[in-house]
């Protein structure tokens, strides 16, 4: 009984922290309409900042607390509102989601860069020197008591603010209709700012309260948020009392699982994965109109031509050949991951780009592909590759079933929960038997992955594997492009634009969604198998949720609707990190930070960088003489590099400069088309400012 009470006390104090973080999430969502994926990361940064002030620089605790909660957290909240959220306010839910994912990645990278993750940073609980309070048979430490009291006080204060004051009502009104809120004498901007400041402050309180109980680790603290997500989803992202209830359920469940779960190899992971599992169940169990997501402003999906996609495929293979001939053996290993990651990124295109379903677990699915191939294709059996794809496709179809009920941020949440369940529990399982089939994941360590046996030719060297991945990426790109042009692709776009309209036109939502999930999971599985071959040994860490986020971000930056996103993501993910890897180990965090920053720049081109690049390079592509010149220069550079005649960097620089110069030249040479009737202004030729004037004069004259 005493033991039970002890677990209950621990559970209640954990629940209190989850409640604080969860209410912060609810406040931001209910008052800005943004689901902040980086909410936990903000709490994590606050905990680090608090450590730095109170322990690192030895400030008095109250001063450090006041500085973090009253200066740093509000400043961060205002920064997020001004720099990140305001530009995407008018865009859809997906763009806002990407912003917060970028912020999450950025926060983790920043924390790792500033605070070396290999140093232990203990934080003492509050009032640790005082004896524990005794409430009958239960002992409650002061820290636990403070945590619970803070949670209750915050809950009461927030409820009053949101439901009993005009400022709170203004905050909620601004989400519903910003323009109308302005007409009723409210200042929507002030309401949004207040919401962000409050939300980040709550995250900071939660982060500081929980940090002494767990290790001060960037990733772990940021992912604590999964438990808070679960609490918030219990409250349907709106209700504070229900969020509290959710926090209680999660906190107590974790404590009891820790106490009473039998000790064996299979179940410890379950305890870690329990909040994520519960989140998944909560998403499924709460039928709610708002769970289906709201306002989407679909970005147009470009229609790739046959010629264009073949050209892309050719470019991919050619690029691989260039790499193989130019790079040294050990560089090939690290650069080689470019193509498999490209395949994984390509799996976002049919799912997120065409169908508008955001999945954050593609890399985890790729992990399954890598494991299946690693075990079944240990001796290079080629049949294991399609089997790996089929297994991952089946997993994808499995995800699709719950996904039918969810869309928008809720789907993103559900898939994130799935990824967390996979990497905290499933991937850590030792081998077990199901219906006579032996199932092994990462053998609680690493799995060795070898290259395939291509009809008697065993592919083992890095260059062979690189070319194989490139060919696979090329084929997959052509396949995805063909999908977009075909009947199924049109159906996917129809489904994205309006599920209701699609269903009323006789489309079967279940079948189509399952098919596209399975398809993209299959592509991701192929990418995972190739990634494994390139890495030679894989561990579960390489396929976790956090590792997958940058890939998703870069794919979004490239443009989820474009087939070239695969190649773009591979290049953008691998090249900068490799090019700068000579500079030191901190480069990894900096490149992660760069990715996050680029994601935050998304607001300036929501349809993707690729579309923009395409528009910039198109004149050169149409200009035959200049194009031939460029190809000639590139060919000569390649030849010189391959023969090792000149410095590779110099040649790369020459090639780049030539390409840019020729692009400018081609753009200048392109004659602006004349004789376009006014109806086509802005469509056939760019809209000019003086056109408005001309048109309005014409209408006045006419009417």
């Amino acid at each position, binding site marked *: 009984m005493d033991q039970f009470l002890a677990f209950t006390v621990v559970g209640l104090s954990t629940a209190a922290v989850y409640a604080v973080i969860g209410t912060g999430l609810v406040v931001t969502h209910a008052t800005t309409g943004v689901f902040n994926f980086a909410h936990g990361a903000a709490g994590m940064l606050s905990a680090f900042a608090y450590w730095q002030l109170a322990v690192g620089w030895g400030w008095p605790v109250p001063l450090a607390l006041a500085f973090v909660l009253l200066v740093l957290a509000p400043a961060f909240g205002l920064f997020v509102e001004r720099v990140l959220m305001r530009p995407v306010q008018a865009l859809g839910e997906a763009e806002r989601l990407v912003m917060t994912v970028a912020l999450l990645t950025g926060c983790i990278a920043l924390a790792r860069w500033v605070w070396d993750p290999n140093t232990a940073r203990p934080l003492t609980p509050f009032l640790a020197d005082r004896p524990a309070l005794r409430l009958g048979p239960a002992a409650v430490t002061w820290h636990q008591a403070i945590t619970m009291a803070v949670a209750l006080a915050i809950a009461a204060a927030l409820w009053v603010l949101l439901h009993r004051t005009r400022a709170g009502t203004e905050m909620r009104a601004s989400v519903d209709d910003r323009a109308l809120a*302005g007409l009723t004498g409210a200042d929507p901007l002030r309401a949004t700012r207040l919401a962000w400041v409050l939300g980040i402050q709550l995250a900071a309180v939660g982060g500081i309260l929980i940090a002494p109980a767990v290790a001060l680790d960037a990733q772990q603290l940021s992912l604590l948020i999964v438990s808070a997500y679960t609490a918030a989803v219990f409250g349907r992202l709106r209700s504070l009392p229900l969020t509290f209830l959710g926090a209680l359920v999660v906190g107590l469940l974790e404590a009891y699982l820790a106490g009473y779960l039998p000790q064996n190899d299979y179940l410890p992971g379950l305890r870690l994965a329990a909040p994520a599992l519960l989140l998944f169940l909560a998403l499924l169990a709460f039928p709610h109109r708002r769970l289906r997501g709201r306002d989407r402003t679909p970005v147009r999906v470009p229609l790739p031509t046959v010629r264009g996609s073949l050209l892309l495929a050719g470019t991919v293979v050619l690029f691989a050949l260039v790499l193989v001939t130019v790079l040294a053996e050990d560089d090939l290993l690290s650069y080689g991951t470019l193509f498999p990651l490209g395949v994984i990124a390509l799996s976002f295109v049919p799912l997120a780009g065409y169908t508008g379903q955001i999945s954050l677990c593609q890399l985890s699915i790729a992990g399954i592909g890598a494991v299946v191939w690693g075990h079944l294709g240990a001796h290079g059996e080629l049949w294991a590759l399609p089997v790996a794809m089929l297994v991952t496709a089946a997993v994808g179809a499995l995800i699709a079933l719950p996904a039918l009920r969810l869309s928008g941020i809720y789907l993103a949440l559900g898939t994130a929960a799935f990824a967390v369940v996979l990497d905290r529990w499933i991937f850590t399982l030792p081998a077990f038997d199901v219906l006579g089939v032996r199932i092994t994941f990462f053998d609680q360590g690493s799995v060795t992955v070898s290259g395939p046996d291509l009809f008697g030719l065993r592919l083992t060297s890095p260059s062979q594997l690189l070319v194989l991945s490139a060919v696979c990426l090329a084929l997959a790109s052509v396949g995805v492009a063909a999908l977009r042009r075909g009947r199924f692709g049109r159906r996917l776009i129809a489904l994205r634009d309006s599920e209701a309209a699609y269903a009323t036109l006789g489309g079967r939502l279940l079948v189509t969604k399952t098919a596209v999930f399975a398809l993209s999971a299959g592509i991701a599985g192929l990418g995972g198998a190739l990634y494994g071959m390139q890495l030679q040994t894989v561990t579960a860490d390489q396929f976790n949720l956090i590792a997958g986020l940058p890939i998703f971000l870069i794919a979004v930056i490239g443009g989820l609707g474009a087939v070239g996103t695969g190649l773009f993501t591979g290049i953008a993910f691998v090249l900068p990190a490799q090019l700068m890897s000579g500079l030191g180990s901190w480069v990894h965090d900096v490149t992660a930070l760069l990715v996050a920053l680029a994601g935050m720049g998304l607001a300036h081109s929501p349809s993707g960088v690729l579309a923009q690049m395409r528009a910039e390079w198109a004149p050169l592509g149409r200009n035959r003489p200049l194009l031939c010149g460029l190809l000639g220069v590139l060919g000569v550079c390649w030849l010189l590099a391959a023969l090792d005649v000149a410095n590779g960097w110099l040649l790369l620089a020459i090639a780049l400069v030539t390409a840019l110069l020729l692009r400018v030249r081609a753009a200048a040479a392109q004659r602006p088309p004349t004789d376009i009737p006014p109806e086509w202004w802005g469509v056939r030729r760019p809209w000019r400012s003086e056109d408005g004037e001309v048109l309005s004069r014409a209408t006045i004259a006419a009417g």
Partner: protein
Amino acid sequence: MSGPLLELDGIRAAHGGITVLHGVNLAVEEGRVVALLGPNGAGKTTLLSVAAGVHPPSAGRLLLGGRDATGIHPRDLARAGVCLVPQGRGVFPNLSVRDNLRMMTFTGRTHEEIEEIAYARFPVLGTRRAQPAGTLSGGEQQMLALARGIVTDPAVLLLDELSMGLAPLVVAELYELVADIARQGVAVLVVEQFAAAVLKIADHAAVLARGRVQWQGHPDSSLHAELSSYYLGSPI
């Protein structure tokens, strides 16, 4: 009081590069209902947005009680007594009826007073005070939106397409109420496509087409002939 309460003087306005209003003059006096009629795309809603400060005019002046109010933030115009009930449902769908009413406290009345006035005028809202406004029927939502016109004591009430999506009986009822509000000394400018309903209560009517006021005067039989020619597009 002498002179009109709300006056639009040579208003020109554009959406992007396209000019929608080409110099509109319109005045609304205290206690009068002015109906602004016109076909689709005439610029009626834009004109109301200009009057509420939501859409900045590219030329012309907005006068409020004789004083220049051009370029004032809609929030401050609202506090100065200009109340726009926008097209569609001018309510916050996810806020309860009570919270919607709470948003109307900006003129200084307490929340309790506002609820009392609103429920006295619209008893049906009182029975649904805890319900999210989005779950009310169309007519009830318009009543809630119109409640703003009563409880905030506006000097100028701007109504955009009050009849949209409502049954004719409900529309007639709502316009009776608008006439009532006007009798208390409010200047009311009503934009409406459904001319018959509003003309019963209007003291003055203006027909807007192609961004200009093409006709204005007392709404009598001559207007009907004019109207059909503008709606049906006979030569001008």
